[in-house]
């Protein structure tokens, strides 16, 4: 309402002003209208001011203005508008300026009245341009009250508003709160639900107690375990008396003894196992429970108990225990086993060590075997089951060492051995078969074999290049002791020599066969003819004579052949004796001399008539005859045959020289081989066995001699042999021997040292006729005393004597004593110990029991002293034997024969027979 009034006022003012301004001419204030206007202006209640915009001088005011401001009009019109503005001085001007500049027409200021009151005014100003320039007419509205009112209104509104707002806020808050609460409630609800869920999902029974021990809540499991259907059955009930009132054995459990109670009355956590809870149905179960007190603000407000039925667990525990015990037992066993294993280990270690040893031995053996294989003389190659070469021995390499450079490399680097495939094997075989006849076939066969572990194969190969030889190859599978095949072995041998020998043998057989059959044919044939045919007399004679001679021939042949075979095999026996060589030769001459009238045989003795050789007479005769016969046969034209007997180098040389056909140089020593005959026309007619020279050779060589020939083909040959001689010149056998078998002994004094009285008696009995005086003593000490006392000629000593000394001791003493050193001693003992004889210088050694004859002989010999014999002998063993025989025959016992440089020392009886006379070489 007031606003309306105000607004009205403003409109009027404005109208007036407008009217005023528009209707006012230049004269300033037009009277008519101006007066009207002025009056209006003066009389109007509206406060009006006219201000100079430039200075702010108040030009005119109305009564209302004066009244409002409390000044007179004159006062006001002398003031500036600025002084009305209630602002600090500095600002006033600024504001005024601002208003002016901005040309603001409506604004609100605070004016100060004359009484210093401050009033809020609204000013509406209108510019008026008159004669005096532009002026501002300001209509001032005191709006202080309004303002105040407004203010109050505002404040009120504000307060109201505020209240409203507050209320709103409160209600909002309230509303919020409610919402919150609702939300919280919901949350709580939800939590509660969750809690329930948790509680109910717990397997353990959980229940809460208040301070009285009554159940405040319980979860599903609690009910389930305890066997209650609904929680109402428990809620509010005292749990102790409900479920925990009795012990397992039925005895009551007092509350004071209940741990739960104790616990939450003291505010302690407790965890107990081993007690029982009781179900609704009165049965008990072993329970494990935890009790936690609920504390609020330091006060115990209850407890929560969680429990579980540990029946199963207990059983499980029991089982565990059992299992544990079992495990313990097993562990024990295992420990024991471990010990025994350790023991076994130790044993195994030992075995291992043994194995090592054996392995070493095995390796040694293998090396040995290897060495043996290597030295077998055959090339050995081994293949494994896959046909690869696993071993090549040295001999093989030697056999095939002519290979070119590359091959050597192969062998050196063991190329074949390193070769993983059969290529190496094939190459190897191909190389081996180089230059061998029919190698392609053999190659295929051998390669096949390397893959075949069953077949045995043998083949003879002839190699033509680069060496001419014969090889023998065989290949067998290698089978171990268990019967398992583990490879193949191939052995190659050079059998050229063997082949040659075989060939020769075959040839020999063929020849012999032929040689035998030929005379046989004649004999058979002619005898048949004679038997079946009517033949003339001279034919008879002729045929029979042929039969006869052929028979002889055959016989000779067989004999010769057997002879030579015997000689070759060393089985021939020669009866060797002392012979005059010249005599043998003469015999031969006698036999053959008459056969051929065409030849003249001349024997040149060269003064060797008494040349003696130690030989088999008949055999040497055979040789000489052979030579002679050949000489005659092979000089069909006749001529001289010269026989020379010479001596050189202790050997007797005999040569038979003819002027016949001679022997070609190429024949060489083949001449002395069996059935050898030089082949040509002239010889074919010459008969003979073809064995003569072969036999001669055997004979001469068996006598330690040499045989040979020289020849000029076409002019003649000279065959010779030599034999070791017995040196006839120095062969003086001075035997000063006494035939003590014939003569009785001289008187002699004999000491018998013998502890056996019976033996003494026996000896005395035996020798009673021997012209000896005998003393006897049974111990060595006294024997020596006696020996010193008497001059004995002979001691007969037993070895075993009474007293300290034995027979040998006595012997020593005797020999050590110049008086008795030369006295012969005969040892008579129960024991044979002949070896000692020679060293001991004794006469003889008789072994008891001896024959009387023996004793006599020995005594005689001893008493008859030494034999002086001097002989220089050849070192020929046979001669020595001969000597033994000769001497023995003559009753001379030879003790020993020793070489000493060029001399032979023969110990006879007890003295060494030094051989004087000529010493020979």
């Amino acid at each position, binding site marked *: 309402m007031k606003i309306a009034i105000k607004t009205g006022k403003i409109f009027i003012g404005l109208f007036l002003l407008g009217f005023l301004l528009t209707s006012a001419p230049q004269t300033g204030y037009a009277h008519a209208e101006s007066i009207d206007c002025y009056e209006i202006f003066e009389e109007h209640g509206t406060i009006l001011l006219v201000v100079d915009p430039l200075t702010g001088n108040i030009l005119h005011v109305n009564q209302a203005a004066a009244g409002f401001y409390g000044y007179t009009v004159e006062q006001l019109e002398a003031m500036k508008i600025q002084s009305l503005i209630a602002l600090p001085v500095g600002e006033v001007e600024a504001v005024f300026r601002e208003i002016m500049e901005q040309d603001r027409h409506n604004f609100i200021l605070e004016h100060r009245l004359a009484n210093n009151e401050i009033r809020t005014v609204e000013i509406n100003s209108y510019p008026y341009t008159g004669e005096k320039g532009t002026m501002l007419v300001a209509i001032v509205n005191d709006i202080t009250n309004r303002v105040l009112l407004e203010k109050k209104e505002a404040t009120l509104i504000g307060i109201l508003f505020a209240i409203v707002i507050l209320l709103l806020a409160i209600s909002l808050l309230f509303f919020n709160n409610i919402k919150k609460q609702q939300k919280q409630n919901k949350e709580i609800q939800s939590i509660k639900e969750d809690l329930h869920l948790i509680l109910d999902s717990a397997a353990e029974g959980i229940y809460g107690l208040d301070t009285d021990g009554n159940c405040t809540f319980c979860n599903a499991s609690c009910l389930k375990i305890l066997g209650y259907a609904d929680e109402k059955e428990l809620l509010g009930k005292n749990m102790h008396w409900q479920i925990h009132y009795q012990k397992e054995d039925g005895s009551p459990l007092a509350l004071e003894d209940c741990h739960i109670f104790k616990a939450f009355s003291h505010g302690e956590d407790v965890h107990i196992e081993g007690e029982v809870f009781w179900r609704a149905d009165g049965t008990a179960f072993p329970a494990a429970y935890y009790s936690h007190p609920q504390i609020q603000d330091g006060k115990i407000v209850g407890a929560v108990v969680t429990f579980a039925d540990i029946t199963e667990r207990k059983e499980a525990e029991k089982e565990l225990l059992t299992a544990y015990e079992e495990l313990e037992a097993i562990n024990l066993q295992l420990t024991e086993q471990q010990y025994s294993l350790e023991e076994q280990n130790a044993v195994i270690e030992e075995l291992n060590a043994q194995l090592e040893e054996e392995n070493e031995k095995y390796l040694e053996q293998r090396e040995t075997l290897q060495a043996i294989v290597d030295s077998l003389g055959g090339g050995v190659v081994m293949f494994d089951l896959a046909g690869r070469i696993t071993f090549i021995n040295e001999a093989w390499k030697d056999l095939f060492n002519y290979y070119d450079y590359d091959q050597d490399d192969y062998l050196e680097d063991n190329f074949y051995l390193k070769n993983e495939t059969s290529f190496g094997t094939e190459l190897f075989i191909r190389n081996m078969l180089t230059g061998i006849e029919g190698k392609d076939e053999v190659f295929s066969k051998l390669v096949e074999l390397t893959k075949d572990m069953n077949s045995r194969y043998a083949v003879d190969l002839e190699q033509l290049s680069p060496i001419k030889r014969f090889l023998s190859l065989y290949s067998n599978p290698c089978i171990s002791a268990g019967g398992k095949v583990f490879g193949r072995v191939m052995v190659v041998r050079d059998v050229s020599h063997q082949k040659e020998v075989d060939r020769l043998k*075959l040839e020999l057989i*063929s020849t012999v*066969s*032929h040689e035998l*059959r*030929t*005379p*046989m*044919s*004649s*004999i*058979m*044939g*002619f005898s*048949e*003819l004679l038997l*079946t*045919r009517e033949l003339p007399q001279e*034919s008879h004679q002729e*045929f029979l004579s*042929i039969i006869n*001679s*052929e028979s002889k021939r055959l016989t000779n042949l067989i004999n010769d052949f057997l002879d030579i075979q015997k000689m070759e095999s060393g089985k021939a026996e020669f009866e060797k004796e002392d012979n005059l060589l010249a005599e043998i030769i003469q015999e031969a001459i006698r036999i053959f001399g008459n056969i051929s009238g065409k030849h003249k045989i001349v024997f040149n003795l060269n003064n060797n008539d008494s040349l003696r050789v130690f030989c088999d007479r008949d055999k040497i005769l055979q040789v000489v005859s052979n030579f002679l016969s050949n000489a005659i046969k092979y000089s069909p034209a006749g001529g001289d045959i010269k026989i020379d007997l010479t001596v050189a180098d202790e050997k007797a040389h005999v040569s038979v020289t003819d002027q016949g056909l001679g022997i070609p140089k190429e024949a060489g020593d083949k001449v002395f081989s069996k059935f050898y005959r030089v*082949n*040509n*026309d002239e*010889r*074919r*007619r010459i008969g003979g066995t073809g064995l003569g020279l072969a036999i001669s050779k055997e004979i001469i060589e068996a006598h330690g001699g040499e045989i040979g020939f020289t020849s000029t083909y076409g002019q003649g040959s000279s065959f010779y042999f030599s034999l070791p001689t017995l040196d006839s010149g120095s062969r003086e056998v001075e035997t000063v021997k006494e035939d003590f078998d014939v003569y009785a002994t001289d008187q002699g004094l004999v000491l018998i040292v013998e502890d056996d009285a019976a033996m003494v008696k026996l000896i005395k009995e035996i020798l009673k006729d021997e012209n000896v005086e005998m003393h006897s003593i049974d111990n060595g000490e006294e024997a020596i005393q006696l020996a010193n006392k008497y001059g004995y000629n002979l001691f007969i000593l037993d070895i075993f004597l009474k007293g300290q000394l034995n027979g040998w001791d006595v012997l020593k003493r005797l020999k050590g004593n110049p008086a008795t050193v030369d006295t012969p001693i005969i040892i008579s003992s129960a024991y044979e110990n002949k070896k000692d004889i020679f060293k001991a210088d004794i006469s003889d050694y008789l072994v008891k029991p001896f024959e009387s004859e023996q004793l006599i002989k020995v005594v005689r010999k001893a008493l008859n002293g030494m034999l002086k014999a001097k002989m220089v002998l050849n070192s020929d063993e046979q001669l020595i034997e001969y000597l033994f025989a000769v001497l023995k025959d003559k009753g001379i016992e030879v003790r020993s024969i020793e070489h000493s440089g060029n001399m032979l020392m023969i110990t006879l009886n007890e003295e060494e027979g030094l051989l004087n006379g000529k010493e020979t070489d």
Partner: protein
Amino acid sequence: MRTILVADDERALKMLIVETLKIGNYNILEVDNGLDALELAGREKPDLAILDVMMPGLTGYEVCKQIKTDPGLKQIKVLILTAKGQQADKEAAKLALADYYISKPFSPMELLLKVEEILGDDK
């Protein structure tokens, strides 16, 4: 009348053969070595040659071979004297293209029969 050539270096044996053949009324030519045998064979062209194996110079085999490979001589029958039981001899005889062989020792009658047989075929 048939001509038989006998070649043998063994006098006794040769004589035996000759004496035996005389019974059969043959013309006999004797030689004691292979060369002569060949020569005589070439000259006289006998109906049969009896050759011993072991002969100096040419052996019986060689002579036989020569005869048998000579177009002018191959018609001559050859009988070789071998050593009994020597398989090699028989083989060699065959190889030498001998017509017949007889092994030593043989009975003369046996020889005679054989000869007749050989020469009888040629009628």
